[in-house]
């Protein structure tokens, strides 16, 4: 992206998509209840943010997502490190993990509802449980796949098992762990939104569902845009974490 004409061009492409949207709605080809104009959508979005209600809904969705993500990351990293560092644990637990993995996280919501009812902490638990897999599996791999040469270096220097886990295992796993945490955060956002839609707990998911059912399309589009913004913030956040924690991968001569 060093090339500024192309950079400006990419802004123009985005603007022309918005203009096309505006033109389609102005022409009357599509009913505004299906596709409101971008100007009225953004005006509505702005009003909602100023009034504070949209902001509050966004924040409660984000809060749920972040808590679930932190639980999933913590659990995934600790468990993954233990399994990854011990060949025996890896041997005995791999089939069990393989059996649990292919279940889509959203299918756990009905199970959670059946077991615990529509409880806010149930939703949080399901988010964390569903989002733990993308962290757990790469963490196991990162801790177990250490270059044999580095193991020799450690043996030669007489480095103990705990020191080895901290100084060799953790940094070796970190790029995989962060990639997993990125997927996990995406999963958290998805499960959070689905969970809010099903359980009607306060948040953007329930709000856009209500908006659709009552044909308030500008509210619906505003909510979708906000969810996109949350997704974009997640990406940016993970980018910052990645650069801060794995500088050796981003640094170049």
């Amino acid at each position: 992206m060093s090339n500024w004409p192309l950079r400006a061009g990419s802004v123009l492409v985005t603007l022309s998509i918005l203009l096309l949207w505006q033109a389609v709605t102005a022409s009357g080809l599509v009913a505004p209840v299906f596709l409101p104009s971008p100007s009225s959508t953004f005006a509505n979005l702005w009003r909602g943010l100023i009034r504070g209600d949209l902001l509050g809904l966004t924040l409660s969705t984000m809060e749920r997502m972040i808590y679930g993500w932190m639980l999933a990351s913590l659990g995934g990293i600790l468990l993954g490190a233990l399994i990854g560092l011990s060949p025996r644990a890896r041997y005995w637990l791999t089939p069990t993990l393989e059996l649990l993995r292919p279940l889509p996280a959203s299918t756990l919501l009905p199970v959670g509802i059946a077991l615990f009812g529509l409880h806010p902490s149930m939703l949080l638990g399901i988010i964390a449980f569903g989002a733990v897999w993308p962290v757990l599996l790469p963490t196991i791999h990162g801790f177990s796949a250490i270059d044999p040469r580095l193991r020799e270096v450690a043996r030669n220097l007489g480095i103990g098992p705990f020191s080895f886990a901290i100084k060799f295992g953790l940094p070796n796993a970190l790029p995989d762990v962060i990639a997993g945490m990125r997927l996990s955060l995406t999963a958290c956002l998805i499960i959070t939104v689905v969970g809010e839609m099903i359980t009607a707990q306060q948040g953007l998911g329930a709000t856009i569902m209500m908006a659709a059912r009552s044909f308030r399309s500008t509210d619906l589009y505003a909510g979708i845009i906000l969810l996109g913004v949350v997704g974009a913030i997640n990406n940016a956040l993970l980018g910052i974490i990645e650069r801060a924690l794995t500088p050796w991968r981003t640094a170049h001569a």
Partner: protein
Amino acid sequence: MFCSIMSRRLIDLLNTLPAWLVPLSLLVAVEIAMRGSGIESDGLALPSQVAIALAGLIADGEIFLRTAETIGAIAVGVPVGGTVGLLLGVWLGLSPKAAQLASLSIELFRPIPPVAIIPLTLLIYGLGIRMEAAIVAFACFWPMLLLTRDAVRSVEPRLIEVARMLGLSRARQIATIAIPAALPRIFTALRLTLGIALIVAVTTEITANPIGLGYAIISAGLSLRPEAMYAFLVWLAVLGWLLNAGLIALHRRLFGAAHGEVAA
């Protein structure tokens, strides 16, 4: 050669066999503990009850009906979203300029979670297979676009140079070098996309659309038939596993010999 690979796989399988006792004995332990304690819950079911329920659902064909509904939505959504993503991906992979022009739009629209458009498709299409197929198409478009773009972009530049030295036209460079070289990775993209499609379809059914396996799971849960809920879950997990394993086997068969190194 083939024989030795087969026997090695067999040996690997036999070696992991004892570890498969772990999930099995967990199930037995749950069965014994639940029978012993006499726990009754609307959310729990004995593993044996779940097995019986699964057999019943298979016997009366209901499970196949539900599966067909889910697969129907995937069968419509994936070709639509996947093809558009594939074509755009090839284009962006071949032309760095086009990729840069599209980059901002991709960065802005890509983060929208597919489940966020469930209400939108509901508004436009109402309930039914069309809304679900539309969500699947939207969800498949992005990974197909990005993975195909990366697959085409990462074709060994030396191969392109060879093609140019041979004096091939631009179109033949693409047709004879770029696309075949990227094919194994494009197939991997297709496999990942199909996995996503299954997840998104089931999620849509759980959330809003009263058809398919997802709806079967949540309605069984809500109507206090936990054994049926778990039976559908087990079935879904098997289905997802079979889909993935089948596509990996197909990948090996299609590209194993010619592209072994490239695929790895």
